């Protein structure tokens, strides 16, 4: 009895904070940043990070059906991957489903160049981007982000939902655009080499 009481008295204060954070993450509609968690829990950011570490070890793949993930510059709960099939039978995923090639290309341009306007997207892709942009806005993957100077065209950028859907902890996790083009640059060099030989 006494022993139990003393145990409760010396409870690690981080445990208590971890429980509070757990509660906040359960009710949150999207990922919460460390600052947001600290403000809601009225605690300091460093201790919040410690508590998140505790939760991450508890809510992880293979140990729990709920997994804590660092996504979209914040923390959120998601389902464990092993439960994916069951989840698929329960819910639809309208945001991810059926993204066309045009939509993915448009999304890629907004990801790397955003905020970017429709005319700019159309210039790069060589075709009008209106319906692709409207579709992405409807899915919530991109959103309006002001206008070009002097009341020009509306510009778009990606939303936190985009990062969440693509499982990115932040946009910095994206590969560099130059790295992506490496193979095409290589191809170009090869062709030019062949062309050079032919010309010689």
């Amino acid at each position, binding site marked *: 009895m006494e022993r139990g009481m003393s145990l409760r008295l010396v409870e690690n204060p981080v445990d208590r904070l971890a429980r509070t954070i757990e509660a906040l993450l359960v009710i949150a509609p999207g990922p919460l940043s460390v600052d947001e968690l600290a403000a809601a829990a009225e605690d300091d950011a460093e201790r919040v990070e410690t508590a998140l570490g505790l939760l991450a070890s508890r809510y992880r793949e293979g140990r729990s059906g709920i997994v804590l993930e660092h996504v979209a510059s914040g923390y959120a709960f998601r389902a464990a991957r092993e439960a994916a099939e069951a989840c698929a039978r329960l819910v639809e995923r309208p945001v991810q489903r059926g993204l066309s090639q045009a939509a993915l*290309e448009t999304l890629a341009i907004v990801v790397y160049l955003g905020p970017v306007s429709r005319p700019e997207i159309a210039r790069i892709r060589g075709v009008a981007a209106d319906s692709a942009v409207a579709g992405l806005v409807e899915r919530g993957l991109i959103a309006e982000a002001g206008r070009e100077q002097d009341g020009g065209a509306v510009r778009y950028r990606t939303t936190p*939902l985009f990062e969440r859907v693509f499982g990115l902890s932040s946009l910095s996790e994206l590969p560099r655009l130059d790295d992506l083009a490496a193979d095409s640059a290589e191809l170009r060099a090869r062709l030019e080499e062949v062309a050079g030989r032919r010309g010689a």
Partner: protein
Amino acid sequence: MTAVAVRDLDLDLDAFEGPFDLLLTLVLKDELELGDVEVASVVAAFVERFAERDAADLEACGEFLVLIAALLELKARALFPDEENSPFEELDPEEAAGELAERLALYRRFKAAAEWLEDRLAAESDRYFRLGPAPLQPVVERPLPPQDPAALAAALRALAAEPPEPSLRHLALQFPPVSVFLERFRAVLRRRPRFVFDHEVRSLSRVEQAVAFLALLELRKGGEVKLGQAAPFEPITVWNAA
């Protein structure tokens, strides 16, 4: 796969023999005179290759169209060497080729980025999370004061009761009998030999005036009175016929 199909399109032209992409590279490097390239043959080669396929490959078509349009533009510029009359005077062919190459390279990069996103999406297809709506301010609920079921019953009963028959009284015209005015005019003529009809009925309602006029006509018809009027709408004078 599709992009490869367009790039690998084998061409057998008078001025050039080899894959389409190589043709493009040679043109961009100014090592092949575009004027010598028969664009129609390139199109024909693509159409033949396209016809061999079972399913329509729209993506390959799109890429081919972009490339062939670029070639046509370059060729059109080459055909207008006179800068003053050129419809493309804003860019010289070298600049145009440079811009084209740059634009193609940029597009290719974003195409690669789109592929990366597609792969990423596929890799993350077993990640499920709850998509909650944005947190809203709590809706203000106005709780009702405690209610008495009997009060509701009484209110409903009042609504269910048959409404009273509406009164039509105001719609009925009140006609005084003609006889009243017959007697009245006879009495007046007993007191004085003549009177002016208009003065006698001045204080009456329109309906009463009309009934009074009927009484007057009745007296005239019976030969009891004579009537005189200087002109239409002038006052009517009434006097004894005797």
